[in-house]
């Protein structure tokens, strides 16, 4: 920065300000709108008036508490299953040399880039056949297609960064691969599991297409579908105050999590993508 010319030195803070403002303003405006009385909504202002009536009516007018619970249950179960299946698979893919491994990794990467719509009718049939249509297990099953390949891929990149010497000593002592995974790798995989789990949680929490298609009743909906389908008394006027309140409720925990785990998330995202 010291070697910069004068205009660059003056302009740079403004660029940073513009970036930060552009990133933060829409969410700030949602918070402001959510805190207005319903009648105040129709005049634009940028300071909150701390009226919490929208927050009360979100929970009163639809089973929003139930929707939040649904989202939490689905996301937690999906994360647990993905991590459980992913850790052993990542060990096999990251630490053991066998034929067809590269092809398998590419397939897994390919599945994580799948358009969801491409499996929609097949998934619908499967969920109907298993009798889990309009239920949380159905959503868990469908969400695995988003989180499982991603989890395996990121955990594999973490696994293969670890030094070879780690497991060699254990093998010399006569440990089996399963013991090596449990005793050697699992204890030091903690941070990687947290990062991957968090990213998978966000993916499952935000999932919309499956949740929209595979649920019918208000009580089974997850949060994104509930918010998308909030309607008011009349067909033409949406209750924007309620929608903004619901949006803020489901976003604040995510933002807090993301800010706490900032560094880990960035490293997880890069592990998932940048492998040039």
């Amino acid at each position, binding site marked *: 920065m010291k070697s910069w010319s004068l205009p660059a030195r003056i302009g740079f803070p403004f660029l940073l300000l513009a970036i930060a403002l552009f990133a933060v303003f829409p969410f700030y405006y949602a918070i402001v709108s959510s805190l207005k009385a319903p009648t105040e909504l129709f005049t634009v202002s940028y300071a909150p008036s701390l009226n919490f009536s929208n927050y009360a009516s979100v929970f009163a007018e639809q089973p929003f508490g139930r929707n939040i619970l649904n989202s939490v249950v689905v996301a937690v179960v999906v994360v647990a299953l993905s991590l459980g299946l992913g850790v052993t*698979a990542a060990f096999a893919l990251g630490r053991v*040399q066998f034929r067809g491994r590269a092809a398998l990794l590419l397939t897994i990467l390919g599945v994580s880039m799948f358009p969801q719509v491409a499996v929609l009718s097949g998934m619908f049939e499967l969920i109907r056949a298993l009798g889990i249509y309009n239920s949380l297990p159905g959503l868990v099953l469908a969400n695995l297609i988003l989180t499982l390949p991603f989890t395996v891929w990121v955990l594999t990149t973490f696994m293969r960064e670890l030094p*070879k010497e780690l497991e060699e000593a254990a093998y010399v002592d006569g440990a089996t691969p399963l013991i090596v*995974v449990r005793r050697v790798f699992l204890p030091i995989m903690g941070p990687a599991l947290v990062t991957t789990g968090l990213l998978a949680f966000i993916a499952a929490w935000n999932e919309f297409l499956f949740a929209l298609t595979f649920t019918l009743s208000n009580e089974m909906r997850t*949060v994104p579908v509930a918010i998308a389908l909030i309607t008011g008394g009349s067909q033409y006027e949406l209750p924007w105050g309620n929608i*903004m309140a619901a949006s803020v409720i489901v976003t604040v925990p995510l933002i807090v*999590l993301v800010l706490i785990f900032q560094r880990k998330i960035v490293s997880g995202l890069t592990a998932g993508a*940048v492998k040039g």
Partner: protein
Amino acid sequence: MTDRSDHATASGGSELTRAKVRSALLFLAPMLVVLFLVAGWPLIRTIWFSFTDASLTNIGEYNFIGFDNFYNSEWGGLLSDPDWWRAVWNTLRFAVISVSIETVLGLIVALALNVQFPGRGWVRAAILIPWAIPTIVSAKMWSWMLHDQFGMLNDLGMRLGMLAEPVAWTASPDTAMMAVIMVDVWKTTPFMALLILAGLQMLPSDCYEAARVDGIHPVRVFFRVTLPLVYPALMVAVIFRALDALRIFDLIYVLTSNSKDTMTMSVYARQQLVDFQDVGYGSAASTMLFLIIAGLTIAYITLGKVKLGGDVR
């Protein structure tokens, strides 16, 4: 593949190596079974349905009708449906424009964040916020800001004298796609910026020292040194974003619903499948979408010579 365990494999395979490979396959099995159940099987079934006249009300009963969903002489089929081709065009237009803007803005943000300055952590935290917000929520937030009567964007534009009258951003055919692209850019530029930033931080500092000592203009340094060096990371980020953009559904579904001006392939396929209950025809559209994305990916990876980490250290 240069692997440190290679010599073990090469030396005929010890008992331990064989045991490791055996348990590796055992470890993989549960994951592969689940992955086949949730991805492979539904994909196969969807492709199969595209050759049938299945309907959503009774998905178990259908007839095999060959390629009729794709093309037939009676009612045309997918390939002669102008709405489908419009959806293809919308998707490509959306993907190309939004990913281009995101790449340029992402580069600018990444370059700015690569500079040491007080409060850098705060700016980085700020740009993570759009990324953390669920897509549906950001679509709703922006619908409210873009609202034709009470939206702040119209209010601001008119106060600043940039707009003569309120604009129906998401409803008018002229601005609907623009609005969708704007929201997508807001939501995903942070992802792009963070990936590029990670690439920038891996660059060696000595070439910059050399360039600085030689007094080369910063713009020249950017195009001659930074850009070529960060290119691989940039390309991977672009692929990831482009694949995401090509399958976009939720943002458009919430922001402009089933409007023809912004309808993408995913929205079209779901409308046929769910709203019109036509599983056969909808599956044909899904299959086409799958083929188009697969084809573009293969073409891009081959032409761009991008390595997607198939090798394991």
